[in-house]
């Protein structure tokens, strides 16, 4: 009887959740915490942004195409949200700790939106984050330099810190606007 009631409650909860444009995790789990250096100084912790919707991506400042596109999309979405944009926090975690210092990330992200926060750290710290989120990051040599092939989706974390969805690369700013509004309305 208790199991039936529990299942019934889970189904009801799932039915009450808004429809998102992003891919949706069901049931949602707590977003794994970060322990990284923040581009804003100090430590970067998701818990600091509880009460906001967090849009979290993974990339690097030398990325030629995917990261600038994603960050420009997120900046545009935040702008279109108007006053609700204040309730959104974009977090961008580097996949290239060798080049992406906290200062470099602050300068780079600030070019898109001064509220964006970057996260960097030791390779082992970042490897844990990648594992927790299922992110792929693979260094590929190019001549004397290198690039990094990496996952390009953006994770949606709700105001309670639950990992609710994942938006694939290439979606429009209005898709983010839709989903952020849906999550803020809960």
């Amino acid at each position, binding site marked *: 009887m208790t199991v039936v009631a529990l299942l019934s409650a889970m189904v009801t909860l799932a039915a009450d959740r808004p429809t998102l444009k992003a891919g949706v995790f*069901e049931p949602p789990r707590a977003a794994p915490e970060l322990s990284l250096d923040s581009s804003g100084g100090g430590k970067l912790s998701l818990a600091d942004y509880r009460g906001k919707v967090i849009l979290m991506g993974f990339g690097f400042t030398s990325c030629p195409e995917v990261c600038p596109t994603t960050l420009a999309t997120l900046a545009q979405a935040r702008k279109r949200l108007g006053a609700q944009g204040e309730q959104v926090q974009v977090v961008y975690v580097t996949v290239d700790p060798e080049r992406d210092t906290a200062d470099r990330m602050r300068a780079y992200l600030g070019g898109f939106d001064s509220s964006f926060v970057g996260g960097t750290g030791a390779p082992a710290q970042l490897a844990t984050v990648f594992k927790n989120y299922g992110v792929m990051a693979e260094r590929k040599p190019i001549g004397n330099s290198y690039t990094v092939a990496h996952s390009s989706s953006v994770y949606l974390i709700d105001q309670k810190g639950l990992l609710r969805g994942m938006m694939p690369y290439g979606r429009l700013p209005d898709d983010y606007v839709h989903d952020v509004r849906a999550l803020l309305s809960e």
Partner: protein
Amino acid sequence: MSRRRWLSILAIGFFGVVSWAALAPLPDRESREQPFVIPEGTWQRRMSGDLVDILPQQIRLTLGINDVLLLENQDTVPQTFGPALLMPGQSFRLPFELASEYQFACTAHSSGQMTIIVDPFPASPWGRLRWRALQLAGTFGNKSHEPNG
């Protein structure tokens, strides 16, 4: 029966099938989800050396017919499934609204990539013919839209 008559019957039959494939309405589906499931015991099978490949490297979806990718992990350990890391008992439901080719990083495949091709809704007779031909090819060919594990 003469050979010419047989050929005539075959030609009429072929014309009838092609006409049906082009003009008949598409079948109603209860759901637009295209599910892929990691069954319980997959991890153990992999550990014992079985090559378990559940998610094909290329998935073909069609808007308005099966335009929602549904990944479910029924195993007892976390699994990276296409673009998503899924905990035991967790699912990932990804709707598509635009016809396009989508590339995802996927550690489950040796290439590190997974492709999802989303075709437009086959509204025209030619579109329905092509869609049915792809379905047929999928049934007898590489089954690119169905689980192969």
